[in-house]
């Protein structure tokens, strides 16, 4: 009895070393490893989603306040449109951030910048007649955030003047915006108006690139509407600098909220995909295991019946 059992096991052990079964065992092992790694990835994406969800409420609150601030700030620009659209020098500031894993947030603003330069029909920069504004191909660009910087370096490296990073890790503060505005003014790059390219918050699941134009001192002075305002002294320079910081702040908070909500969605999708993958891998693994067991049983039974 004992001898028979050992005999019966011997062929199966032998056949286990054979080519067909060996591959089967290896794939089982492989599937198990993949299953484990996918499960780990799911854990990571799930926790990233949870973090983004909690941050989202804070970011949205900051955005609501920042938006009101921006609306109050842009009132003066809305009233001082220039009649003659002089081909003025535009300085582009592209607002993204340093971190990835948030869908197409960064490439959205990068592509919008390229479209604005190309003057294509879906350029974010439109004039009053909803026509794309012509942009000088040599217009300077400044980038906030490493991700868009890397993307713009590839195609428009000649236009890049300055880049900022470490902004937008947490909810942006006015000090961040003021620091950026200060460096932009100190950089000495001449401009008549600054165009901020940022992501506009549409809803919790969507965003779109938008452009906001902020006139500089010279741009304000030559506009017709601006002359309607009374000033005791000439505060145009102060106003232009303050407005630039305000506009940057509004764009930063909105872009930040977009990024967090995009990250939440991206991580939600990743978790769902991981869950699907885990399901199919588990199925494959179980089937493979069952097949291996069946094979072994067949071997044992044929061995036993041959005796």
């Amino acid at each position, binding site marked *: 009895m004992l001898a028979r059992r050992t005999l019966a096991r011997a062929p199966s052990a032998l056949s286990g070393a054979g080519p067909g079964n060996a591959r089967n065992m290896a794939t089982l092992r492989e599937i198990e490893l993949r299953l484990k790694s996918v499960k780990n990835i799911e854990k990571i994406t799930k926790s990233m989603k949870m973090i983004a969800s909690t941050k989202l409420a804070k970011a949205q609150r*900051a955005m609501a306040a920042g938006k009101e601030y921006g609306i109050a700030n842009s*009132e003066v620009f809305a009233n001082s449109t220039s009649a003659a659209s002089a081909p003025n020098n535009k300085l582009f500031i592209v607002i993204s951030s340093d971190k990835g894993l948030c869908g197409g947030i960064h490439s959205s603003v990068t592509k919008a910048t390229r479209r604005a330069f190309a003057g294509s029909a879906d350029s974010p920069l439109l004039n009053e007649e909803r026509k794309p504004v012509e942009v000088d191909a040599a217009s300077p660009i400044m980038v906030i955030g490493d991700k868009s910087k890397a993307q713009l370096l590839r195609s428009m490296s000649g236009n890049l003047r300055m880049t900022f990073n470490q902004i937008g890790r947490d909810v942006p503060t*006015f000090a961040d*915006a003021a620091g950026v505005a200060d460096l932009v003014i100190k950089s000495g790059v001449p401009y008549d108006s600054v165009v901020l390219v940022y992501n506009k918050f549409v809803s919790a699941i969507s965003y779109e690139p938008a452009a906001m134009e902020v006139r500089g001192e010279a741009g304000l002075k030559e506009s017709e509407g601006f002359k*309607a305002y009374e000033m*005791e002294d000439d505060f145009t320079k102060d106003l232009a600098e303050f407005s630039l910081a305000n506009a940057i702040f509004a764009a930063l908070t909105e872009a930040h909220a977009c990024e967090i909500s995009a990250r939440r969605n991206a991580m939600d999708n990743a978790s769902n995909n991981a869950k699907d993958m885990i399901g199919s891998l588990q199925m494959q693994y179980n089937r493979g295991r069952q097949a291996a067991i069946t094979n072994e049983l067949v071997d044992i039974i044929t061995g036993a019946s041959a005796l």
Partner: protein
Amino acid sequence: MSSLRLLASAARRAPSALTLGRRGYAEASDKIKLSLVLPHQPIFTSTDVVQVNICAATGDMGILANHVPSIEPLRPGVVEVVESSGSKKWFVSGGFATVHPGNKLTVNVVEAAPLEDFSAEAIRTNLQEALRVASGNGSEEDKLEARIEADVYEALQHALSK
């Protein structure tokens, strides 16, 4: 007779209560739409108010409805908003007030807080600290910053003592 008089007075009072609650065109003309906003918090957003007193860099001024469009930089001081229900005071650190065509006033300030929230103790100690740095031997930039800080505290002290 007396009951009749009561009825008449009640009838007289009713329409006035109605006009108070109602927002119409006639009333909008003697109110100005105010947006007083901070980077982290809007205080007023396009709210109809009667009068706004600001302390502009060129002097204190009161803004009523249909003011001529103008741009005023603010110095540290008190912004008083007079609504039909009463007035409230904020201390602002600085910013810009802009009166727009179309009976609109926007006040963008970097920081503001209700005047009654300040503690006189804290102001005094912080003012002393700022004055110490301003007269100390730091870099020119640090000293200037401390000087501005001290100016804000002095303005705050002045506003509280009123």
